[in-house]
């Protein structure tokens, strides 16, 4: 006999939960084996795809390094096909596609694993079984949700790792597509991808607990997680990176600002500075504006006029006119700080939802 049957003592009970084959982990796996199997298969296939593509990309990248193709003026006969492939060929489409796929991963986890988790227990009536066992409903819920959330976080973390690695050659080659500050990349690092997966899972579980029917819970989860992804990648990202920015003069950038929308004299740059554009190295540029010699901010019309008149006349025109281009930016050194803020904030939101779910389970009728 194992410690299971003999251990009436609470310590024995906790120990038995960790014993192989008789643990909560086994219970969770056995109950959700179907969903976990196909979900795991899907994520594995995605990971392998990125791995294969990544190997190709890194091979091209290695060849470029070998031929010295990474310099700005390295247009040798050997380099051109390599540069064309990464800069214009399939890696461009690949990059856009995997970014989208990485954003879809949390949605899939929330919809197909999170939402049915409690909703199915309610519809099948098995809550009346699960919640009347000796373990108690709170510990049952904490163990189930915790183990599945941890598994999903680990899977998303691995995918984020492969994703980042596979895009390194693209990031090194093209100025912005796969830069680490770009929302599609920034939001899918091992940290942020794992956090997003946990949040979507928590959304799904709470939806299932509130709605108690599988399909409606899945629909609501899809709507909420897609909205969250949209907000994160399109708004939250830019808002977050606009907080606490540094200010700098950048005449070279101001002389040829080929990006952004101009409104009220302020240029929204929202772009990173790679090796192709000047500016604080490795930084995220938020906004920019021109001031005249008197320190007055130039209006839209004045800026448009200047650019139409002088762009292409050389990098010195701005200084010649005694105007200044100012730029707000996040230094590259803050990258991990903002990673922690986004990842931590996402995890915090997930923890709040999980706490709400547990509270609901504790206090609501079965």
């Amino acid at each position, binding site marked *: 006999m194992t410690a299971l049957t003999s251990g009436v003592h609470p310590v024995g009970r906790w120990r038995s939960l960790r014993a192989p084959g008789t*643990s909560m982990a086994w219970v969770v796996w056995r109950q959700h084996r179907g969903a976990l199997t196909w979900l795991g298969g899907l994520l594995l296939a995605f990971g392998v795809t990125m791995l294969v593509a990544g190997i190709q990309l890194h091979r091209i990248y290695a060849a470029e390094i070998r031929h010295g193709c990474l310099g700005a003026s390295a247009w040798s006969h050997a380099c051109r096909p390599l540069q064309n492939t990464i800069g214009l060929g399939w890696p461009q489409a690949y990059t856009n596609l995997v970014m989208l796929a990485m954003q879809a991963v949390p949605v899939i986890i929330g919809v197909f694993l999170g939402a049915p988790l409690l909703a199915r227990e309610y519809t099948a009536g098995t809550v009346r079984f699960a919640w009347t066992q000796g373990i108690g409903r709170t510990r049952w819920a904490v163990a189930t949700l915790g183990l599945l959330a941890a598994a999903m976080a680990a899977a998303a973390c691995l995918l984020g790792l492969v994703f980042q690695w596979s895009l390194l050659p693209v990031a090194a080659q093209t100025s912005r597509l796969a830069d680490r500050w770009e929302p599609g990349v920034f939001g899918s690092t091992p940290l942020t991808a794992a956090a997003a997966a946990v949040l979507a899972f928590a959304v799904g579980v709470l939806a299932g607990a509130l709605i108690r029917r599988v399909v409606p819970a899945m629909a609501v989860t899809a709507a909420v997680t897609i909205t969250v992804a949209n907000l994160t990648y399109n708004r939250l990202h830019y808002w977050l990176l606009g907080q606490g920015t540094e200010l700098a003069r950048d005449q070279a950038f101001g002389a040829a600002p080929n990006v952004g929308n101009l409104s009220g004299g302020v240029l929204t740059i929202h772009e990173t500075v790679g090796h192709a554009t000047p500016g604080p190295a490795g930084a995220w540029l938020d906004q920019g504006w021109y001031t005249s010699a008197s320190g007055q901010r130039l209006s839209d019309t004045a800026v448009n006029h200047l650019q139409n008149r002088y762009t292409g006349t050389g990098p010195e025109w701005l200084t010649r006119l005694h105007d200044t281009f100012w730029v707000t930016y996040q230094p590259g050194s803050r990258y991990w700080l903002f990673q922690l803020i986004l990842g931590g904030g996402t995890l915090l939101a997930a923890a709040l939802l999980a706490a709400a779910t547990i509270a609901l389970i504790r206090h609501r009728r079965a």
Partner: protein
Amino acid sequence: MNVIETAGLGRRYLRTWALRDCNLAIPAGRVAALAGPNGAGKTTLMHLAVGLIAPTEGRVTVLGGRPAGSREALDRVAFVAQDVPLYRHLPVDDMLRLARVLNAGRWDQSRAERRLAAMNIPLRRKVGKLSGGQQAQVALTIALARRPEFLVLDEPLAPLDPLARHEFLAAVMETAAEDGTSVLFSSHVITELERVADYLVVLACGRVQVAGDVEDLVRSHQLLTGPADGVAAAGDRFDVVHAQQGLAQAQLLVRQRTASAQAPDGWQAHPVTLEEIVLAYLREPEASALPGPEPAVIS
């Protein structure tokens, strides 16, 4: 020790009271039957007792004062819900393993395996593929393997054929006798009650109508037959639960006010079965008899 005690217990769903003003104290060591028509509040009372739902008002404790649904109560109270909800996609042996993890500490694996083997329930078959009777037996097996001190069964007989009912009740009785497990079960099948129950609770319209020891109930109730014009006289000495009046004759199911109450002249008294008592109360939801022990007041 009382196996379940309620004081002013009530549960409301939206605007409807499923159970109201329920004062009960069922002594430990009994097999208690919970009878009542559909919607009387049987399931609500059981769900309150196992902590699946919280009371809207009042208190409910089990096994000598443990709050219903608390960890120390859940550990010792096994519940088989109506329609025996089990994980239908799991094979029986995995269902057992799962229950074993969820009830580590008190679980009796060999007991579970013995029971299932005795009933020829294939361990590798999925629960959902078993017959209704076999599923009920698996649910009961899991409940018994938890070695509960208090076993709560909600309509356990409903999905069973007569033979399976017999076997199921035999298993419950055996456990009650061997382990001293207290049992509370609800049922529509009144004929079965008498054979197994030694305590009876009848609910009607969310209120406790009858609660008491079966022997006391049978002893204190009588069927009186006599002249139709003598009903008033009989009513002076007895509480009339249910009256059937013809032109000349009347038949009354009555409860004695005192142990020495005698039938009036011209009346004949017959003993009644538990089934007749239950039916009489079910026919008269307004009548009530609470001859059992006074509910303990929970401070």
